[in-house]
Structure formats: structure tokens, C-alpha cells
């Protein structure tokens, strides 16, 4: 990945734990039934859902809100100052990705970027063809966007994935039709951390010549986690989000390769080259920029995150002797450095999550956006997991600030809860499977 060339001299390490974070203690009616969580330090292992903002990010947001509060479209100096913040972030992201600044469109986040990419490109190319190819393990914002396109008359086929979530480039080749206009494969899966062979997929598409389908990649979980140079070189459209890299929520970006036409989702005052009109989210974009300027720190943390993840997995198995524990997804060393997905067949993931919470450990079942949905994860089902494994999945996701002690505390929490929960497990319990 290409990174900002100048060394980030402003890097200030954060305290190891987000102890001032929005823990459950601050809730209304706090103190009620908080059991073990009282007085414990927070071990936050849900970084794939969202991350704590960096101090420099908070400073940048605050500065934009209180000082650079002009409208970037205004003609005066205050407007210019706001515009400069927006353009500085655009330049930073362009440098990180190795693209031109005018190939980037700011959005309200990954969901909007995915919707703009898929609906925008499909509608722009509808006259050429109406066939879309999508991997079945995409985030809901991709799957539901193509679902909406299906209702408009597009035809959608899903690509086959193997047991570790990999899309086979040759399987893709076999499914491309003359009327295929768009392919969407996420660069890093948000639940199991599979890093897709985007370059190989791009080469397959390139072999179809001038009339080839476009390639969109949801790179929300990839930014700052895996090398992106190759990914962006082969993709025509790529989605990003700030709050996964210690930036603010509510801001993201879409890379649109020069020459790729999109139909915008909304009409307005012409901002973002008419692709995403509306006054720019200047504070959010400024915060995104601050996060990008400290991306080096994240990249440097990859080896340590991998090592901690491996230690977490090994310690989990060692501390739960005789208990069946399954790891979902690709080989540890091949997966994205921050995501570990484990299942305890017979337990429901959400029960484990709540039990860990009582010990101050915050994790997730699958994707945070769908964790209210009691159905088993579509990702785990697509890679062939049984219902018992899919329902029992817990996603642990690390950040650059995760420490040895966090891992230790998390393992202790598992050891303290899982054996007891298994006593009351239903799926493989006294009454047999459901």
C-alpha cells in the first residue's frame, strides 16, 4: 500500500484501552444489573464494527465544527478554509490509494458508497446489459442494493465461494455473459476476514477487453488492514469508511476510476462533481483526513495484530480443554490481521457475547449491522457452516491498540463463561438438534 510519504510526526499513542469509551455504564438506569462489568476495564474486541477515534481525529472534527465552519461552496475566505479541509483529505486518501484526487467522492459512509457504486454503475450501463455478479458473502449494503436493482429488472447471480470464503476467479470467468455489466466482490470480508484475490479477479475481467464488466470492491474492511495498491489498480469502483480506521462515523468515500460513469442517487447543488450533491460533511471529512494521516501506525501494527490474533486463538483452545471450538474462515496467516471468527457449536453467539460483556469484554456476533437479526449469518451459511456453527459464531476484531493484556483478559472471560453456558446448551443437549 502506498502511504503518505511524509512520516507522521504527530503520532501520539493512545492509552491501551478505550476506557472512556461509550461503555454500558453510562447508560440511563446504569448500575442496574450490571453484574461483573462494574469496575472492570473495557476490553474492546469489536473493532470491525467501529473503532475508537484518535485524539487527532477528535481535534480535527472539533476544529472544523468551531472554526472552519464555513460552507465549502461559499465564495469567501471562510468557505475556502472549509474547502481546503475537504481537499486535503481527498489528497491524503488519493495518496494512500495511489489514485488521482478527482477520482474520489465523499459519501456518508460505506453503505452509501456501496449503493452509489452499484446502483450508479448498473443504471448507467443498463442499456448495455442488465446482468450483475456478486459474491454471496458481501455486506448487507451490497446485497440489499443489488436486491433493489433486481426489482428494477436487473438479473443477479451469485459467485461461488469455497469453505474459507474465497471467490474463485475461474468460477467468475465461467459466469460472465455478454450482458454482464458489473461484478462486486468485497476486498476483505467483514465477518471472517477473507482477503479476496482482487488482482486475479481483475485480470479475468480484463481478458474480456473493451466491453468488460466493471469491478466494484467493498474495501471498507480493507483500508488500513491489507495492501490496497493492487486492489485499487484492478477495481473500477471501491468503497471506504472512516470509522473503521479510528476516524469519525458518518463519512466514507467512493473511488470512481476516471471514465467510469455513474448515475447519482440524489440531485442537488452540484457538489462532488454532481455524484454526491449536498453540503460536504466537513467535520467528518476533516476527521477522516486526520485518521488517514496516522495510517502508518496502523500498517506498522499488522504483524503484532496477527501475532495477537494467533495467540488469542491458541489460548482459547488451550483454556477450554475438551470443548469444541471452531474457527471460521481462512488460515490465520492469510486472513486480514484484525478478524477472528470462532464458534462454539451448541451455544448461540449472542449469548456468548452477552456473557463476555459481563466480564467487560465486548465482541460481536458476525456483522454488527445484522446482529439484531436472529437468523444465522449469511456469510457463514455461504461458506458451508452448519446451523449450529453459524448460530454459535462470535467475531473478535482487534485494533492497533489491542494489547497482550486484552487478549489475556478475553481468554479468561471465555474460560469463565463458556463451560457454564455449555451446561445449558440446547442444540446438542439432552433433546437433540433443532
Amino acid at each position, binding site marked *: 500500500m502506498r502511504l503518505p510519504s511524509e512520516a507522521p510526526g504527530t503520532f501520539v499513542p493512545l492509552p491501551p484501552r478505550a476506557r472512556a469509551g461509550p461503555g*454500558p455504564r453510562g*447508560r*440511563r*438506569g446504569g*448500575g*442496574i*444489573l450490571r*453484574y461483573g462489568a462494574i469496575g472492570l476495564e473495557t476490553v474492546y474486541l469489536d473493532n470491525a464494527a467501529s473503532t475508537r477515534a484518535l485524539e487527532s481525529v477528535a481535534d480535527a472534527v472539533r476544529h472544523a465544527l468551531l472554526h472552519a465552519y464555513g460552507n465549502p461552496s461559499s465564495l469567501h475566505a471562510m468557505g475556502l478554509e472549509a474547502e481546503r479541509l475537504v481537499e486535503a483529505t481527498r489528497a491524503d486518501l488519493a495518496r494512500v490509494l495511489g489514485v488521482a484526487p478527482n477520482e474520489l467522492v465523499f459519501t456518508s459512509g460505506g453503505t452509501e458508497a456501496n449503493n452509489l457504486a452499484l446502483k450508479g454503475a448498473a443504471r448507467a450501463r443498463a442499456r448495455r446489459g442488465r446482468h450483475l455478479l456478486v459474491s454471496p458473502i458481501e455486506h448487507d449494503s451490497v446485497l440489499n442494493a443489488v436486491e433493489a436493482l433486481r426489482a428494477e429488472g436487473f438479473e443477479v447471480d451469485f459467485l461461488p465461494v469455497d469453505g474459507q470464503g474465497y471467490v474463485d476467479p475461474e468460477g467468475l470467468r465461467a459466469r460472465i455473459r455478454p450482458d454482464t455489466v458489473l461484478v462486486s466482490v468485497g476486498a476483505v470480508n467483514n465477518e471472517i476476514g477473507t482477503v479476496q484475490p482482487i488482482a486475479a479477479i481483475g485480470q479475468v475481467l480484463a481478458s474480456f477487453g473493451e466491453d468488460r464488466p466493471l469491478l466494484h470492491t467493498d474495501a471498507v474492511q480493507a483500508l488500513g488492514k491489507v495492501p490496497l495498491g493492487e486492489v485499487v489498480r484492478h477495481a473500477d469502483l471501491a468503497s471506504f469508511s472512516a470509522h473503521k480506521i479510528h476516524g469519525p462515523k458518518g463519512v466514507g468515500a467512493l473511488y470512481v476510476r476516471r471514465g467510469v460513469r455513474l448515475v447519482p442517487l440524489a440531485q442537488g447543488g452540484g457538489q462532488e462533481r454532481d455524484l454526491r450533491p449536498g453540503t460536504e460533511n466537513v467535520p467528518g471529512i476533516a476527521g477522516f483526513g486526520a485518521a488517514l494521516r496516522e495510517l502508518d501506525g496502523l500498517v506498522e501494527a499488522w504483524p503484532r495484530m496477527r501475532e495477537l490474533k494467533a495467540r488469542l486463538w491458541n489460548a482459547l483452545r488451550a483454556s477450554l480443554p475438551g470443548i469444541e471450538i471452531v474457527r471460521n474462515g481462512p488460515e490465520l496467516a492469510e486472513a486480514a490481521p484484525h478478524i477472528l471468527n470462532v464458534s462454539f457449536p451448541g451455544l*448461540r453467539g*449472542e*449469548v*456468548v*457475547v*452477552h*456473557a463476555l*460483556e*459481563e466480564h467487560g469484554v465486548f465482541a460481536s456476533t458476525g456483522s454488527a449491522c445484522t446482529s*439484531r*437479526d*436472529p437468523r444465522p449469518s449469511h456469510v457463514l451459511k455461504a461458506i458451508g457452516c452448519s446451523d449450529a456453527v453459524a448460530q454459535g459464531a462470535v467475531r473478535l476484531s482487534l485494533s492497533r491498540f489491542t494489547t497482550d493484556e486484552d487478549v489475556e483478559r478475553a481468554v479468561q472471560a471465555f474460560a469463565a*463463561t463458556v463451560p457454564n*453456558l455449555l*451446561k*445449558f*446448551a*440446547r442444540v446438542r443437549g*439432552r*433433546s437433540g438438534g433443532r
Partner: protein
Amino acid sequence: MNATAQPGGTMLVRYGEISLKGANRQTFEHALRRRLSEAIERAAGADAPVRVRLAHGRIYVDYDEQEDDVRERLLFALTRTFGVVSVSPARRVPLDWGALVEAAEALGRRAKSGGARTFKVEARRANKSFPKTSPEIARELGAALAARLDWPVDVRRPDAVVQVEVREWAYVYAETYPGPGGLPLGTGGRGMLLLSGGIDSPVAGWLLAKRGLEPVAVYFHSPPYTGEKALEKVRDLCRALAVWCGPLELYTVPFTEISQQIYERAPDPLGTVLMRRFMVRIAQRLGDQVGAGALITGESLGQVASQTIESIAAIADVADRPILRPLVGLDKAEIVELARRIGTYEISVRPFPDCCSVFVPRNPATRPRIDDCRRAEERLDVEALVAEAVARTARERLGPAPAGRMGQETASPAR
């Protein structure tokens, strides 16, 4: 500022049933008046220039029409106070013909622009010192409005009825909004409402609150099988009920240990009914602390396995006071309809997975025998489990959700 010293707005609040209560009438009237004052204070603030008067078998709520949206907020509160049959927002004017015509014209103009093509005037002169008789008022006012507004009178089937009441002031109104009816909250004592987070139990609580029984909520929380968000959902249900009942107390009982022991030691098919027996025991213990003479549940006959006559009997076996089940004869669709009306449905259907299903038996007994339940409980230290759960119960007080938030629409006219 004295709201009655000058012309302004008055809500005419009618209460039906409680005026029939004979010797107890005064008690009920005072209870209603107190509840109305509380509701008004919540709706308009403690210092609002609002006065509540009791006269002529009605309650008059005088307010300052100049105040921003106070009319809407008062109407919202009054139509959500148990005991209120209907409310008419009226203009209050001095006993002067010109003022009366002017007030009626303003009301008529609004009704006409709201789509009423025809109208009539109805008048009632209670104050005989007013020079015109009731028929004269109706006729002359009708003629005046018809001329000034170019608005045809239709005495048979008018779209709008402009009503005039002449008392110490004259009251003019054209709209009447239904209240919930029932009896003032608290006149029936208190009841422990077993809230599950589902659709039924809040409706059960509301129905009995309507009959004057003040609900005190109990929720059985099973962490880690039920999460913090499930508890928050129950809190939101309490906040929605508090729109009708005023601030509600919620007792949250830790129930995991009891479920686990039942699961480990009792026959699987009896799991649900045994859990319900524990809930009844605990709710009664808490009820003793707050003076609740009854339990309230959302059971509806035959809806699920624990709601057969045999199950109900097995659960009632441990009850030392009445268990009220106001939904027992209702269908699900009827319950849903009520839940929508009172503003709890949207909360109840919020999809927080209820992992308590872990402890639900695979083949629950639909005809549990009381003897079997008692025998199964011999393997449990019932008293210790109940005492421990009661000791670790948390209490909180939850005020009403901000008006309009829970999908409650402003009341619509009765006619």
C-alpha cells in the same frame, strides 16, 4: 396570571361512569382531578397558567390560548387520562353577544376551511340571566355565521356542529375528542404487571390501568440469555405506558439462576410452567413491598402451551392473590389492534432476540398436573431461590416518553 380572569381557552372534560358512583362520587372526582392535574403538569409544565375547576358534573381546564401549542399538549394529555370520556376544546368568552358571535365565527371559519360544507348551531343556556333563550341563541347565531361566512346551515346532517354553552362564561366549541374512559388511576389500588417485552403484557397493564388499577411493572431478566437491549425495550414499554399512567416503577428481577436450576433438576416438559410459578411467587413478594393486591399478566387462553386452562391452574396454584388476565378472551389480532392504539406495538415488535428460548422445553406440557409441579419443586430450594432473586431485584422509576415519539397520533375528533 389568572387564567380565568379573562377570555381564553377552556377544555370541557366529561367523565361518565364515575358520576354514577353514588356516595363515592366525591372520592372519584377528586382522584380524577388529581390525575388530570398531574397529566397537565407533565404536558404543559408546572408553572403553566392552567387552572382545573370542578363544576356542574364536569371538569373545566382553563388555559391561555396565547401559549404556544399548549392546546395540543393539553388535548394530548387529557385524552390520555383514565376516567375522561371526552374533551372539547372551547373558547371562553364573556356573556356578551358580540364576543359570542366573534368566537363562533373564528371556530366556524376553521371548520369550514377544514372541509365542513354545512353546519348548525346547538345552544344550551344554563345561566338564565342571559337574555336570549337556547333556541334564540341557536337561530340567531346560525343566521349570523351563515351570513358572515357564506356557509349553508343544515340542521339534519351538518358536517360541523358549533356548540354554545352559557354559564358564568359562554363556551363555544365545534370539536369533541374521545378520552379513554374508565376510572381514575389508583382508585382500584395497585397491581404487579408481569412485563415480558412482548405485545400482550403492556396491553394487559393498560386495560386494567383503565379500570383504576395502578400498574407496577416486573421484568424477569436472564443475562446473558437476554441482553441489555432487551431490558431497554422493557424500559421503553414502561415509558410508553407512562404516557397514560404517569411515571411507572419497574422492578427488574435477575432470573437466570432460577431458569438454570429448573433446567438442570426438573423434568423438561414442566420447564415453562415452573418458571411461571417462580415468577408469580417473586411478583407477589415484590407486591407486598408496594401494596399490590393483584398480579396482572398478558395471558390469552390457548395462545401458547403455558396458556391452557391446566397451565393457568398450575400457575395459579402458587398465587395468594388474584391473577388478573384481561386478555384471556381476546384474539391476537384484537390485542395487536389495542397495542397499536396505545402506542406499545412498535416497541414490542422490535427484534431483539430473546435467547430465553434456550430454557423453553422442546415439548412443553400442555396439561401440566399440579402434583407434578409440586413434586418437581421438591428438588429445588424454592424459598432460597425466591429470596435471592427478590434481594437482587433492581428498582427504577420511568417517566413518559416525549409526546409523539412512540407513534401516538394526536387524538382525532369523535365525530
